[in-house]
């Protein structure tokens, strides 16, 4: 019996409507039994031509559209776009507004990471942590609703500052939340992060080497999980981040290989702790004063282009804006973290089980609207 037994590959269509893809994404899988031989992601189901819309609306009018680019961290998306336009028109933002931006931005980062780790655990069958984390996220939604009036698409950070000042008593409520959340995080960690079954499921799965992470241009927590000490809040500090003290958590391969699924999961858990640290300092340091710089209603920036990078929960988001001096962008390109995180799946998944693909997608924290724009 020298002849090897060969089986026919089966082509399976995963998605576009699949509970674990978190949005409308389709994967075309070639499988040999349970093992994936090739995986081709098919994206574009949520393409809403946001870049084309930007060419038709005013500079201020585009801010609400950035909410829809990534609805899990709309504050950070507002912030990234506002930063880009502020760089175009050389606008100075008041100190208080910068602190408010940090406060709401970090709150939004926590809520985004809660969804990321919650859904990652849920896809692997652990449903309870997800429900618990959503309950905690409600407190953040309440806080952001008090500040902005909306629970998901805020349109709060605008060009030149923030829309309006924080309501009275907001900072005290935020401080209460931070203290409460420390306890909640401990509970959550006992439930899922240090759970032996969960660790064994995630460790050594689909490791990304440091070199590969750079080649594929992974950003944010995915890049840091591969051992790179890179966080734009540290490397190219913007806003008031230089005055705040926080660590940049990186993957160390604590439970297996460097850059595996558990590292990517754990970096996000650590980042929540750092965000809490930032919130505590910002609540203490926030000065009083104006919250909006004087910006003309008809912004007419000089001719040229800027490329601004901003650290959102999904990493380095780049806004490229080409201006021809008129009242709307000539060309706007949004480069998002999910786009490259998705393109690496094609390389990562061959050899993995179909059930592992779900873990890989969950650990990379891909958000479909941000992917397709």
């Amino acid at each position, binding site marked *: 019996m020298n002849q090897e037994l060969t089986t026919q590959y089966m082509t399976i269509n995963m998605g576009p409507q699949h509970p674990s893809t978190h949005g409308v994404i389709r994967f075309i899988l070639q499988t040999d039994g349970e093992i994936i031989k090739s995986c081709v992601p098919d*994206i*574009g189901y949520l*393409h809403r*031509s946001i*870049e*084309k819309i930007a060419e038709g609306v005013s500079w201020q009018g585009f801010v609400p559209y950035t909410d829809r680019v990534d609805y899990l961290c709309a504050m950070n998306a507002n912030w990234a776009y506002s930063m880009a336009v502020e*760089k*175009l028109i050389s606008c100075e933002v008041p100190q208080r507004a910068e602190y408010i931006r940090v406060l709401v931005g970090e709150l939004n980062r926590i809520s985004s990471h809660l969804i990321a780790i919650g859904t990652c655990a849920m896809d692997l069958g652990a449903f309870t942590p997800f429900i618990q984390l959503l309950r905690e996220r409600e407190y953040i939604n309440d806080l952001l609703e008090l500040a902005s009036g909306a629970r998901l698409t805020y349109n709060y950070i605008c060009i030149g500052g923030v829309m309006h000042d924080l309501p009275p008593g907001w900072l005290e409520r935020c401080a209460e939340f931070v203290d409460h959340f420390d306890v909640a995080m401990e509970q959550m960690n006992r439930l899922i992060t240090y759970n032996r079954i969960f660790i064994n499921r995630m460790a050594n799965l689909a490791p990304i080497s440091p070199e590969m992470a*750079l*080649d*594929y*241009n992974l950003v944010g927590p995915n890049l840091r999980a591969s051992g790179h000490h*890179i966080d*734009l809040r540290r*490397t*190219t500090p913007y806003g008031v981040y230089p005055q705040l003290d926080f660590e940049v958590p990186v993957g160390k391969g604590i439970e297996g290989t460097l850059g595996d699924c558990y590292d990517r999961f754990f970096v996000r858990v650590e980042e929540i702790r750092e965000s809490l640290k930032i919130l505590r300092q910002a609540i203490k340091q926030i000065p009083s004063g104006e919250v909006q710089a004087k910006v003309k209603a008809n912004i007419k920036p*000089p*001719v*040229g*282009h*800027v*490329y601004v*990078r901003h650290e959102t929960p999904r990493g*380095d988001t*780049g806004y*490229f804006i*080409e*201006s021809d001096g008129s009242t709307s962008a*000539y*060309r706007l*390109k949004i*480069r998002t973290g999910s*786009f*490259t995180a*998705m*393109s*690496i799946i094609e*390389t990562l998944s061959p050899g993995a089980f179909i059930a592992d693909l779900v873990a890989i997608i969950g650990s990379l924290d891909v958000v479909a609207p941000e992917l*397709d*724009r």
Partner: protein
Amino acid sequence: MNLQEAFALIQAKSGINVTLVPTELEGSIQVDAANLHALLAFIKSNQELGFRVLASQTGVHAKTAEAESITLYYFLVHHHYHCHIAISCKLGMDKLEAPSVCDLWPAANWLERETFDLLGVRFTGHPNLQRIMLPHDWVGHPLRKDYVKPEFYHDTEFDLNIDNRPSEIAKSFIL
């Protein structure tokens, strides 16, 4: 390292004909399509420059009464992530072709597909140059300035005459 320093180093060491395009905001280093791949390969491998990561790739379609062109932009980020530079390449409308850099950065694969899809630039040597955002049978490239919306897609008619006037209920909320 800023753009001027990078430009001086590239001009001195690479032997490729490049020009600096300064603007009031951020400038770029311009190169012609024939030398684009060689320049990017040089920058990636040069330790002194350190621009190891391809962060973004895009194109801008510029159309005036006299001239029409598509300028490609490549944004390269330093491996310490503290700075970036832009490389630009101007293509005439008669020859919308540029060499693919997928062999240098796997990240370029999808970025180039997106540029091909939305702007119609062909990347020679790309392993899988297909539309990525739009359906495979879509006609036209939407991010061009002279793009006209189609009236039909398969059997569905796009209603281009949507009534945007506020309804009676909406009017009652307008002060």
